């Protein structure tokens, strides 16, 4: 980024944002690469057997997912903070130092996952190799490192938010990020009791992805609408508060849908079913809200007799709209499919969950964060209106199409498991493999791999576009 147009207020904050975005993009690539390895192993189990087994490929696949998203979330906040508050980010030097600590710690964790993989059954392994708890496998030392970095990030946000203009977006982000950071502590202890273990483990996983992260997305979408459409702040922020009400109102107790079968009492059936069934509602609201604001702003523009599109960043806005729809479809519809205990008794722990997980993480988070990448490209290159390029259209289509295809494939695989392994055969070792050996399951895994390749090519195109589009002459400067 030689042509750096980052000047004036918030220059350093936005620069730090681009560091986080760059790091996020690299880890995003790693996530897809190791996802491909795991997908190949489903088709060809001998692939890298004994060298880089499925468990290791998957650990890196899902942890890279979390890390790139958290990095991009940090980047998004550092990017919008000066725009919203109107002042320079306070303590930005510390923020920059913490970035390097964060990046170094993540690199060490990944290298240890890759080359050490497992350890003997003792505390040293838990502290320095792996904690072996899905999504938060990072060893305990890294947990503390993450806590330190997050505290630094939260203090940047709070000090700046309290001193500068405190918009609705900033208020939501401040309260959301403190919850986001605090919840992580629930995953930092060891217990012999697997039920207690998973009870608190879900506090971290669920209250992140089905509560605090969703609210974060609401806030980012609000910022994006104001930034890219010039939508009316009062309207946008009113919707944001309504979304927060609905997201936290359903999402916090929706946690109960993870407590159906882990040893916890039966009352979670009712609580989990009721509140998680409500979880899609705010996602509908968010989708309606984005399209409504778009139409309204464009309509007001047209009424003035101006025929131009109101959007100032076409690719970013495309990803924001994909977010609104993908969040509803992946998290909302695919989540609702299996959230009632009567259904979940059979779908719990099958590829059905994988189908939902893939489309939800993509639809709810990957999309809007890629949109933020494009906003940063626009800002760092001093572009007034960023247009779509052939590359951005191809990459968007391939990633989104591949993701939908993969979700359908995994859903079919899930059905086979539910019907054959669970309902018909009764969930034993033999039952499991009866399902896996079936031709429908095998075909679904083939298609999943093919779709994974499509997504990966789309990702490469996306990276090329992000790196080159700023220099192209099609944009209005």
């Amino acid at each position, binding site marked *: 980024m030689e042509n750096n147009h980052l000047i004036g207020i918030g220059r350093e904050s936005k620069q730090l944002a681009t560091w986080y975005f760059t790091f996020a993009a690299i880890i995003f690539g790693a996530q897809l690469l190791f996802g491909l390895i795991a997908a190949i192993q489903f088709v060809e189990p001998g692939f890298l057997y004994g060298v880089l087994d499925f468990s*290791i490929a998957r650990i890196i696949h899902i942890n890279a997912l979390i890390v790139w998203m958290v990095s991009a979330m940090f980047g998004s906040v550092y990017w919008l903070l000066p725009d919203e508050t109107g002042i320079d980010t306070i303590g930005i030097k510390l923020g920059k130092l913490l970035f390097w600590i964060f990046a170094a710690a993540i690199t060490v964790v990944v290298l240890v996952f890759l080359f050490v993989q497992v350890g003997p059954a003792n505390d040293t392994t838990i502290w320095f190799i792996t904690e072996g708890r899905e999504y938060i496998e990072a060893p305990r030392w890294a947990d503390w490192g993450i806590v330190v970095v997050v505290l630094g990030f939260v203090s940047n946000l709070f000090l700046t938010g309290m001193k500068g203009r405190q918009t609705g977006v900033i208020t939501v982000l401040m309260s959301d990020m403190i919850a986001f950071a605090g919840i992580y502590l629930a995953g930092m202890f060891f217990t012999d009791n697997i039920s207690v273990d998973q009870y608190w483990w879900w506090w971290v996983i669920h209250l992140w992805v089905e509560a605090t992260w969703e609210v974060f997305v609401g806030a980012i979408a609000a910022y994006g609408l104001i930034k890219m459409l010039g939508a009316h702040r009062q309207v946008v922020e009113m919707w944001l508060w*309504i979304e927060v009400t609905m997201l936290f109102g359903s999402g916090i107790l929706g946690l109960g849908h993870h407590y159906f079968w882990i040893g916890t009492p039966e009352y979670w059936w009712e609580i989990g079913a009721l509140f998680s069934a409500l979880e899609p509602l705010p996602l509908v609201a968010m989708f309606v809200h984005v399209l409504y604001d778009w139409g309204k702003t464009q309509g007001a523009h047209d009424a003035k007799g101006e025929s131009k599109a109101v959007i100032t960043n076409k690719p970013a806005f495309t990803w924001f709209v994909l977010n609104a729809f993908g969040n509803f479809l992946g998290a909302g519809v695919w989540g609702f499919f299996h959230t009632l205990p009567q259904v979940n008794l059979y779908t719990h722990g099958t590829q059905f969950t994988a189908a939902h997980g893939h489309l939800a993480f993509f639809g709810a988070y990957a999309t809007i964060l890629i949109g933020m990448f494009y906003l940063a490209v626009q800002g760092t290159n001093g572009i007034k209106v960023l247009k779509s390029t052939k590359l951005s259209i191809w990459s968007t289509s391939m990633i989104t199409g591949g993701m939908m295809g993969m979700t359908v494939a995994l859903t079919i695989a899930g059905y086979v498991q539910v019907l054959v392994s669970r309902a018909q055969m009764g969930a034993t070792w033999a039952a499991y493999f009866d399902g896996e050996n079936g031709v429908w399951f095998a075909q679904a895994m083939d298609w999943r791999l093919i779709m994974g390749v499509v997504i990966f090519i789309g990702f490469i195109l996306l990276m090329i576009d992000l790196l080159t589009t700023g220099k192209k002459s099609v944009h209005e400067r």
Partner: protein
Amino acid sequence: MANKSVWTDNRFWRRTATWVTGFAALLLIWLTFDTSTQIAMGNDSDLQNRITKRVPSPTVINYKIAYDMNVKRGHEVPVIGGDDGHGNSLFKEKEKFFGRDDWSQKEAKALLHLGKLAQQAKNCMDCHTILGNGAYYAPDLTKAWLDPAWGPNGSMQAMTNKNTKEEAMAEFLQHPDMFPSHIRMMPNLGITAKEAKGLVAFLKHMSSIDTNGFPRNFGKMQGAVHGK
């Protein structure tokens, strides 16, 4: 502005968001206290006094465990030490675990501790599911202890050349790459004999956890396909 409706008032929605979030969080915290009491691990005296716990004492490894339909609850539950005919535990019938049925509270606890550590240190959850959570590359382990494949007539005892379930499991865990159970083979994770014993204790203990009937019909279905 005087006639402005409350529905279009940002302050009203901000307060609503705060109240709703606060109420949901408080309810969750209250339920967490109740659940924490209910899922606290029992101790040996519970078993002696025939008290059913959702998560029993580690010394449950001294007892025979089954997974039977509970008449009152309408789904399967773990049944410890024999069934009273209605799916309730009798806590009578013992079962030897590595040759003993008198594991003390302290010994059993240490074994379970080792097993739980091993379960994390070997990343079990990144291929298997545990209580249904984890990865979907290998079978669910929630009730693995009760799987007929490991039983006296199952294929695994013959394959590992062992005479008891726990020995067969421990042998397999130490050398999974030597037993071609399926084309998707478990890799050798360097599990020692001691760790394997701990892991088997962990699995036996987990099978005694009351999971509200998950998985349904476990190990009961035969002859459905492939002429079994």
